[in-house]
């Protein structure tokens, strides 16, 4: 089974791809201008930020970046396409021949390019009296299109691919990560012939649509029927794919260069771009650097970027294993409260964890203190209660003369009393401190 995806993701720019209109229209047709309405005499001017985001994505996906790119007109008639052509990139995508790793498998990326979205049609009214309303707020919204090789071998893998991709893009360029920001055309062949499922919204639906298509194709092949090459649609409500309405022919979009926009030299731009570390890349690094499981590393990073920062600070001081158990334990359980005041609390957290690691503080003491930090109350300082500790030690030593006697021959006899103290103090003091005090007291009696 081979699956390839064509993924459209909305780029999170504030203005549209070819005009200054806001990408956040509130009511229908509230964010439109001559350019995105395709009025005669208007023309496009490129949003540089969108171009940069596109290049960054292409570079992140390990693509070969074109030195120069230009735009093309893709002509077809559709009621929500204001100019009846779409400005896209045809013979000069931003990047080609890249790859993206999912679950240890490398998936080929054929091309990455940017293009404008058309408008949106909404059908309203009772069946038979339907009218179609057109909202041009989406017209000109910048999209990046990522086309993969048919390298995925199951619907689940396709879903994992999309999940991981959106995780990375969220950090890389700030896509919102909501299901709606992604529209997918999925190509799937179970036998020889390829079927395309058009325009699926959201990752869950991609998996569902592909599964239903696998079922359909497998059944047909089992029954000895031939699979026709065609375009299908995924009916979300019924969970099945349906044949597309358009007749089957190789569409001819009559591409020509977009003459109003020039050529853009992106080679140097791409070369000067630094790719920030993305979550899954960071998780992979953490798991390698601190020898921890992939899942654990992924969980830390995906919980919160700042939590992973905290982990790295702690790991540098106390090692990966201890840092991991503190991060995933006490820190993440009170993370909601800690996060907001992290700047003030960071030093305190590090001190506590380091104290525990060095044995100066017991584990439970450390946990208690962190929970105190999160609730905003400082735990009592150990120094104030030293009187209590000494009193208990004195009392216990008095009660157990036989231990004092044994101690003369064997220092380990003290361990019994140390255990008693620890129990009485409920782990408030580290064993090291208790041992020192105990030793001092016993020495006095010898």
């Amino acid at each position, binding site marked *: 089974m081979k699956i390839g995806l064509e993924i459209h993701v909305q780029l999170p720019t504030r203005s549209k791809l070819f005009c200054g209109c806001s990408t956040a229209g509130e009511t229908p047709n509230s964010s439109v201008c001559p350019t995105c309405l395709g009025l*005669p005499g208007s023309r496009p001017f490129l949003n540089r930020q969108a171009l940069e985001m596109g290049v960054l994505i292409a570079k992140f996906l390990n693509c070969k970046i074109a030195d120069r790119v230009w735009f093309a007109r893709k002509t077809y008639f559709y009621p929500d396409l204001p100019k009846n052509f779409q400005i896209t990139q045809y013979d000069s995508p931003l990047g080609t021949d890249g790859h993206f790793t999912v679950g240890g498998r490398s998936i080929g990326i054929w091309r990455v390019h940017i293009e404008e979205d058309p408008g949106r049609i909404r059908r309203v009214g009772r069946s038979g009296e339907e009218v179609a309303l057109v909202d041009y707020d989406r017209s000109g919204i910048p999209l990046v299109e990522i086309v993969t090789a048919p390298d995925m071998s199951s619907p689940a893998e396709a879903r994992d691919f999309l999940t991981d991709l959106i995780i990375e893009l969220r950090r890389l360029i700030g896509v919102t990560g909501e299901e709606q920001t992604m529209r997918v055309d999925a190509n799937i062949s179970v036998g020889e012939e390829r079927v395309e499922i058009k325009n699926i919204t959201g990752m869950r639906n991609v998996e569902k649509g592909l599964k239903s298509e696998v079922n359909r194709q497998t059944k047909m092949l089992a029954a000895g029927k031939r699979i026709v090459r065609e375009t299908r649609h995924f009916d979300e409500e019924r969970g099945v794919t349906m044949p597309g309405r358009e007749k089957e022919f190789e569409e001819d979009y009559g591409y020509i260069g977009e*003459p109003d926009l020039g050529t853009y030299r992106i080679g140097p731009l791409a070369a000067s771009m630094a790719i920030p570390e993305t979550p899954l890349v960071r998780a992979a690094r953490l798991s390698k650097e601190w020898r921890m499981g992939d899942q654990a590393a992924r969980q830390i990073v995906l919980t919160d970027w700042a939590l992973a920062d905290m982990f790295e600070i702690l790991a540098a001081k106390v090692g990966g294993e201890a840092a991991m158990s503190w991060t995933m334990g006490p820190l993440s359980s009170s993370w909601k409260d800690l996060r907001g005041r992290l700047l003030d609390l960071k030093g305190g957290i590090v001190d506590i964890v380091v104290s525990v690691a060095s044995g100066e503080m017991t584990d439970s003491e450390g946990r208690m203190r962190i929970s105190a930090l999160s609730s905003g109350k400082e735990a009592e300082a150990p120094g104030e209660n030293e009187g209590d500790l000494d009193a208990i030690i004195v009392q216990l030593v008095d009660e157990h003369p036989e231990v004092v006697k044994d101690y003369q021959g064997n220092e380990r006899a003290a361990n019994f009393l140390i255990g008693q103290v620890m129990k009485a103090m409920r782990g408030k003091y580290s064993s090291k401190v208790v041992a020192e005090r105990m030793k001092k007291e016993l020495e006095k009696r010898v």
Partner: protein
Amino acid sequence: MTTFPTADQLRSIDERHQVFCERLEDPLALDQGTFHFSAKDNLCSRGFQARAGSRILKGYRPPFDATPIRKLRESGGLLLGKTNMDEFGFGTFSTNSGFGVPRNPFDPERSCGGSSGGAAAAASLIPQHVALGVSTGGSISCPAAFCGVIGLTPTYGRVSRWGLIDYGNSLDKVGLLTRTARDLERYLPVISGPDPKDPTSLTQPVLDMRGEVETVAVPDEALVGLSPEVAASFREALKELERNGVKVREVKMPSLRYAIPAYYILATSEASTNLARYCGMRFGAMNQEFDQGFNDFFAQTRSEDFGPEAKRRILLGTFSRMVGFRNRYYMKALQVRQLIIREYRRVFDSCDAVLTPTMPFVAPRFDEIARMRPLEMYQADFLTVPPNLAGMPHLSLPCGYSHGMPVGMQAVTPQWTEGSLVGLARFWEEEFHYRFPEVMV
């Protein structure tokens, strides 16, 4: 069915005529640094319809001003009105308009030329008037020659195209038609300059209005296929130039003969995409059945409201872009365009300008035009198309009169040297006596 204008309509036409005359005759207004201008109907402007000569845009009022119109208005210009043209610029004689045919001021039985025919007529008829024209393949030069005025087509990218209803975006240029060099000198700087709304205008160098033409090249290829009267006037003009110390050189520019096919492929390829938006969704009459598939609805609107020449060019352009033909036509035409640019550059190594007649004949009569086949009409542009393909600035000047009809000559200079052309116009005006038609009121 013929419809006759109602009394109200007649009254409103009369009122418009009155206002027009009053504005023209108001010397006070012109003294105060104000001036009047007209704009070709494919330039958008608030307060006027912009129909680009097409019925499909009937009633369309743009919500914004084209940049050249805005700039003229801001410098004191009063927009008198919009001038008639071939539908979307498709034509050489202004006979393809959806709204009547403008007539030549020198002879009403003859064409104004196209596609900026109305603009040339206005410039020819109204003293101190500046007419905004648009050229894709010669639509300023041709009518300027036929109507006996000066027509300047600037370098591609010199004047912003924001607000210009597109024909072939990589070729379209806004320019000026006037009676005098002084008006070119005055208004070219006003409409020129970078405009963030037109990316192709952004990389232009500063407009330098100085410059002269001392040596002109005359390509052999330009002298075949001329009518005897045009050939004679042009020869006479060359002699006049030489008498004034201008050196004239004969050169060969063999690639010029590929300009026409390359132009028609590129221009129509772009045009066919530009015109796709006129489908009855927001432009064009919506009197069809709504109860049909959108493709049928669009096809019906387009069949009814586009003129025959528009349909011809849409078909030609669509064909050239299709898979299987794209490489043979569209891509090949792009290569020819580069060839022509190189050929001009080679000639400019030793000459300041390339000089040819503008049109191979004087303004033809409408009955002659009616007998011409489309290919013959396209061929008439063989001298105006090359500089347009190359994006080079060019100027058409009256250079003689044959049986009362003006003959034009055309000078082409290197990119961004509009100043040399204005210099040439100034110099020629001193040597040559222009005639303008008398208008009886």
